[in-house]
């Protein structure tokens, strides 16, 4: 089946089988290798993408379901190879240690940090679908809140 969608701002058209997962198509067929799969079953949040502006887990979505949608993966937030304000904030706040979970947290983080208003409690609750075994989350929450302040200035 033919799938047409916009990925990180670029129109794409690709022939897929109905049983191909969106995460696999983005990663293996479109070469977006920063997107990763951790649990393969909707639990860890590592494969999170923005689909029509909302964070979703791409390991439990069929590629055909994405027809007509607008997608952002973790690759989509930097500009001309420069890290986004949120990515800078992750570096400053040490929002990562081993880095395994980072692709997922950056995507949810961009979604949260760009909201017009968001409290610390809301950030904590909204991050609960993404799992990190290293940081203890505090640095990640701090990184998102600090980036939020910057996006608000823009």
């Amino acid at each position: 089946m033919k799938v047409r969608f916009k990925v990180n701002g670029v129109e794409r058209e690709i022939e897929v089988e109905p049983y191909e997962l969106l995460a696999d198509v983005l990663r293996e067929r479109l070469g977006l290798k920063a997107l990763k799969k951790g649990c393969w079953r909707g639990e860890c949040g590592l494969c999170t993408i923005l689909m029509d502006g909302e964070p979703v887990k791409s390991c439990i979505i069929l590629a055909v379901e994405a027809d007509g949608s607008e997608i952002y993966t973790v690759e989509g937030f930097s500009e001309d190879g420069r890290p986004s304000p949120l990515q800078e904030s992750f570096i400053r706040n040490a929002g990562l240690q081993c880095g395994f979970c980072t692709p997922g947290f950056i995507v949810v983080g961009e979604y949260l940090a760009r909201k017009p208003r968001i409290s610390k409690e809301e950030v904590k609750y909204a991050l609960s679908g993404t799992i990190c075994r290293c940081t203890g989350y505090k640095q990640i929450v701090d990184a998102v809140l600090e980036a939020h302040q910057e996006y608000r200035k823009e």
Partner: protein
Amino acid sequence: MSSPYATLPEFEYARPSTLEEALKLLAKYGEEAKVLAGGVGLITFMLERLVSPRIVIDIKKIPELRRIEYTEGKGLVLGAAARISEITRYMDSNPRVREKYRALYEALSRIADLQIRNRATIGGNICEALPFMDSYAPLALFDAKLRIASVEGERETTITDFVKGPGFLDLAPNELLVSIELPDPPRESRSGFSKIVPAIEYSVASVAMLVANPVDPRSREVRIAVSAATPAPIRVREAEEVFRREGDIVDLLDAALDRMTSAIKELVIEDPYASAEYRLEMLKVQAYILFKRLLDSFLQERG
């Protein structure tokens, strides 16, 4: 070569744009078909090879199934394919509706996580048919009517008649859950939802409760629904009846909880996640806390 957990079994895919088309496909393929709503459940089950349908019928693009609509006097109508996050967002922008159906709002806004709520649908949550589904207790509480359709016509049922037990629904292979209708709750009622989620991510005991007119024995109403601790959701009418007795509502609570215990004791699940004793105790504790919370909210209002 396809291996479980990493890839899906092969299937055909259909994306009907009308209800009629979807029902025709279901009539044609019957047990060989599986409905796909949010896919959160279906795709993980297919990854584990628990199901291998010949055809997957995606119902998300049928506008009628995406409805979210409140009409004064008629109640709240939810299309089966309305996403959990769409419903809670609708309620957030209509605070009066949110307060009317507070127990449903509290349950839905705590399902899984942000990303899952953006995909999962109310109909999929109902049709996944595992005891812990968070929509169950509130739907039982609000006397939700479920509309089921097939090429042969439509019928109406309730959540407690529809959900028979783990993985077991009163739903024929050619039938589709179309919508969920929640009639207006009693005027000036308060409701809430509570669940116990241990280290596993699913509830082992959930309670939804509603209180209306607490002071006047003649008009007051208390509703109690439980799920997760029992194989299917239950409206505990035996306990509700206790609150029709004369007397101060607070003095009736213990008797009501005793009636709840005797009414459902034999049905409570015992498994490695939680013992029956623990589940039953947690139902009582949560019912007690919810009751106090709802009564307090009435008192606060009267100042």
